[in-house]
């Protein structure tokens, strides 16, 4: 059986574990990522790690899809590689980039020098390439592929084989390549893919992923815990904020306020010492509601009380 498909539970992610406020991961000091895992999310993360499949995360904007990878990397004490996808990203950029033009340029200068021509000097590994190369050398890491739907349709398709076999070769340098050792499933990189559902992804790519949809935390206790984590320390303010957000979520806005907006807003209210009784009047709505029509609607609905 291929390494890729072997179940390996040697690394178990435990969200209950208490973590230091900052830790050193391979010579880099990283601050703790405040993140609240639901049991379902934690189990999906463990499933993805054990099966060695990418974890495909979906959810409303600002619900914490990207921060998830940071939180996992911190909790497991592994370095995080990030690939932020743009509309111009190519599948191969994630593996490596080959600077043919600079090589040509250097080749011209070499007439006067004695420096040898080594194609490897013109290859720069991309995030996925680095992650696989690190596994090749015996180090595990976490990879975040952010907003995969931004790129062209071919992008996920171009990576199918590399994600399946966790190996790649550099076409420009024959015989050069990296692979996760076949008998070491504990070195497989942990891959988190976020998707905003702007465009449908190809089925062949989706088939290889473990899926999780992050819901907005509707339970007031969860929201309270999240606000506490993000240093909204006043209990009366937290209660007022949760009450307002509960009522706001019942209005059908064109763009519902997400978790990140809520944290921004509550953090600001705390910083300017807003009394808890004023929160119901929705001060500073600009941090929470990003469309004019929504602001008017919220003012009408909340003002009527």
């Amino acid at each position, binding site marked *: 059986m291929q390494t890729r*498909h072997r*179940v390996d*539970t040697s690394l*178990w992610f*435990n969200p*209950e574990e208490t973590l230091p406020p900052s830790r050193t991961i391979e010579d880099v000091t990283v601050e703790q990522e405040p993140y609240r895992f639901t049991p*379902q999310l934690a*189990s*999906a993360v*463990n*499933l993805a790690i*054990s*099966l060695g499949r990418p974890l*495909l995360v*979906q959810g409303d904007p600002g619900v914490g899809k990207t921060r998830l990878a940071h939180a996992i990397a911190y909790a497991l004490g592994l370095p995080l590689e990030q690939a932020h996808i743009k509309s*111009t990203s190519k599948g191969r950029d994630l593996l490596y980039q080959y600077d*043919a*033009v600079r090589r*040509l*340029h250097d080749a*011209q200068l070499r007439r006067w020098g004695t420096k040898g021509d080594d194609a490897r000097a013109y290859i720069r590994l991309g995030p996925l390439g680095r992650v696989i190369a690190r596994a090749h050398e015996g180090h595990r890491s976490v990879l975040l592929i952010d907003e995969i739907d931004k790129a*062209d*349709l071919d992008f996920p398709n171009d990576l199918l084989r590399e994600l399946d076999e966790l190996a790649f070769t550099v076409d420009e340098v024959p015989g050069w390549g990296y692979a996760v050792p076949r008998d070491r499933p504990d070195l497989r990189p942990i891959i988190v893919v976020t998707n905003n*559902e702007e*465009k*449908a*992804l*190809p*089925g062949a790519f*989706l*088939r290889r*992923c*473990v*899926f*999780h*949809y992050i819901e907005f935390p509707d339970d007031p206790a969860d929201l309270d815990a999240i606000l506490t984590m993000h240093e909204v320390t006043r209990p009366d303010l937290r209660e007022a904020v949760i009450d307002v957000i509960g009522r706001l979520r019942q209005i059908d806005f064109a763009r519902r306020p997400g978790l990140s907006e809520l944290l921004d807003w509550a953090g600001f209210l705390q910083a300017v010492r807003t009394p808890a009784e004023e929160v119901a009047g929705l001060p500073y709505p600009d941090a929470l509601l990003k469309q004019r029509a929504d602001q008017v609607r919220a003012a009408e609905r909340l003002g009527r009380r």
Partner: protein
Amino acid sequence: MTGPAAPGAGAPEFVRQLVVRLRRRGLPIGLDDCLTLRSALAAGFGIASARDFEALCVSLWAKSVSEQETIRAVLAGADIPRWDDAVPVEDSGTTVEQINIDKSEMSDPVSLPESPPPADKPPPRDIPTVHRMTGMSLMPPSTGQFDSGLTVAPQYPLTAREIAQTWRRLRRPVRYGAATEVDVDATIDRYSRTGVFSGPILIPPRRNTARLMLLVDRSGSMTPYGNFVQHLIREIHHAGRLESIATWYFRNLPSTRADTALLRELPDPFRPELDPILARIAPSSAGRLYADPELTEPRTFASVLAETAPGTVAVIVSDGGAARGTLQTARLVGTIAMIKALRCPVAWINPVPAARWPGTTAEQIARHVPMSELTAEGLHRAVDALRGRPRRTERPV
């Protein structure tokens, strides 16, 4: 893996049932997915309770929120043993032990029914509570629980995946925009000719410039297919990464007036074939289209055509009279006049099965325009026609 690999052989009955039901709902669950589920169960996932099992199935098999709902609904309806293991899974000591045993026995038929412990106490299902109503209540009494067994998800003969796969093939990659890509060949060519390296040559990246115009019939005979056609259009919008997609609606034809004078010149009035006069039917951009499916925002057909950029391909979604089983030569003439006015590759998608086309206007239209059914294969052929490789039609317009 040899013997137990088949989901019907080694796996318990409910897995087979589950897979069959999911496949019927359009989720392509395969052998590979079943094996993944089994190895995940063997590793200790999803065996703590029925709810955990549901979460596991969703994680492994769902790829979108609607698929998540489908899987939950199917699981709620399937005959699956309910259990709730009180032992917490976090007890890592036992988990690891269990995994080791399971791993070593992977080649043996793993008996799935044994991994979920049988329910020894009455299953703690959520019991609906009825609240006493006081005064007038606008809302029906709610249990406060979301019951996924009651979820009604629309099921169309074509899934979103199938539609997406077909329409992605509609491409016209053209290089345009800001020059950002290095043209390595041209750079080397210039260098070898001049002998001096004077910087890279940049070219614009390729983009899909295919433009699509959807013309959708909303007449009475199309009503039974209305939701299905809307689903098709929604998924084409969602999946097709095209330069632009314009959707216009009409009733039977943009214009009710067709030039029927030509029909008198047909040699045999009892034969519906228009071949002798086909070349003489003039393109007609009379009449109007509507921007919304309710047909309330009219625009003249001529102005829509004037705004249509060159290189657009058109798809007509209509029954062509096949739903009512009628043959109207006037409509046939009007249709051909409309298609001639479009002046671009046209594919016709007919939601009525092909068996019902003979003897109707649709049969005659299909002699001049590539017409296909609203099935996966039919869509495939329609996209082929738009890409410039139509199936042979008897007398192309």
